[in-house]
């Protein structure tokens, strides 16, 4: 007697194969489809990220920390393949730590960004990594450098990245003003990330924020029910 394996007609979904013996996340790579952002202000930077890591349609980690310390006052936001970005961040952390010991002083944010860029460009065929490097150093104060997929590096006063970033270009373009205060930057980042998380299926969870300045690093988490609310949302 044959067992009826097929339970659903193929018209049920073109995106997911519900008749497969194993769920899709067993065959999919882990990705930080994500929304990340960093803003410069006078005296430091504000960095933010969502907290969702997906393997296909399964959320592998709903409380991910995508803000990774590279040095005492230099952090990076990671987007793209989780494995690639973790490996790159580990390698750069080692290189930067070594460089800092040789120099006998705190490294520059531009140095960290250059190390990321060198690695992302050299291995651009194999890697899928979009990284925003931000931090504070004595020479130039707060700085944000973006190293998107492909391995370019450029400094920007405000930078967004990840799959959710497409939805907030308009919001960021219209709401960013030069010379914002730290509190204004925090509010701006939290609002932008919330809007992206509402529209992008690969972004969600909580909003993680970090403020880096001469005084050090302050970390914050905004939970789901505390996120800013908008009228249509």
């Amino acid at each position, binding site marked *: 007697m044959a067992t009826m394996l097929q339970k659903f007609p193929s018209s049920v979904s073109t995106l997911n194969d519900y008749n497969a013996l194993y769920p899709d996340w067993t065959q999919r790579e882990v990705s930080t489809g994500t929304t990340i952002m960093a803003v410069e202000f006078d005296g430091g930077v504000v960095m933010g990220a969502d907290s969702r890591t997906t393997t296909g349609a399964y959320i592998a980690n709903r409380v991910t920390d995508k803000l990774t310390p590279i040095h005492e006052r230099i952090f990076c936001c990671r987007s793209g393949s989780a494995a690639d970005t973790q490996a790159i961040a580990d390698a750069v952390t080692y290189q930067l730590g070594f460089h800092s010991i040789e120099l006998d002083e705190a490294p520059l944010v531009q140095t960290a960004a250059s190390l990321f860029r060198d690695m992302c460009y050299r291995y651009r065929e194999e890697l899928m990594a979009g990284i925003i490097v931000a931090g504070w150093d004595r020479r130039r104060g707060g700085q944000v450098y973006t190293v998107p997929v492909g391995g370019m590096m450029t400094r920007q006063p405000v930078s967004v990245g990840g799959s959710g970033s497409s*939805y*907030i*270009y*308009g919001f960021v*373009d219209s709401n960013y003003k*030069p010379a914002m205060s730290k509190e204004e930057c925090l509010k701006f980042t939290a609002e932008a990330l919330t*809007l992206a998380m509402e*529209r992008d299926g690969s972004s969600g969870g909580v909003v993680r924020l970090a403020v880096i300045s001469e005084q050090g690093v302050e970390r914050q988490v905004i939970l789901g029910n505390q996120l800013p609310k908008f*009228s249509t949302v």
Partner: protein
Amino acid sequence: MDGITYQCLGLLQLKTTILAVKFNGGVIIGSDSRASMGESYVSSKTINKLIQVHDRIFCCIAGSLADAQAVTKMAKFQLSFHSIQMESPPLVKAAASIMRELCYNNKEELQAGFITAGWDRKKGPQIYVVSLGGMLLSQPFTIGGSGSTYIYGYVDAKFKPDMSLEEAIQFSTNALALAMGRDNVSGGVVHLVVITEAEVKHVVVPGNKLPKFHDE
């Protein structure tokens, strides 16, 4: 191939930015004015993507230009016939339903989606979206086309129900300008049509009068 579609990663992408927003007393329907062939040639800088299907009902198209023109032509004819039979101006929902029937029944052949907006006596200002497969949805505001991805955050944050006319024009112009600033296949001038009980007004905002943002 000319038209306002291109294929991207197997999914049909719509080369334009269109939007419609309801305000206190009417609707505004708007679009950019660029028609492109491929990624890098602008075949027209000033085309009007807003089509009038009846006195107080307008449509903007996203998708294949040929399909959209064929559907709107048929809808215009059926709507005027319907309006003569009923001896009164047609409902916006009727116009949207006609297009939905055409899109749904011919979904294998057609590749066009519409935003229909207008004013009628029964329900006042309304906006309907007919998507690619033939779904009909009523919304207080809606955006579409390839440039719309960049302004989801902006419109979610800035839309308020029951805006005044000036606020709604500012909202639409800003949203289209932001999308045109980031999407390379949207550009040119901003075409807006303001539909109220009293009149239909076509507003064109040329490139040099568009709002500028911090990095421009």
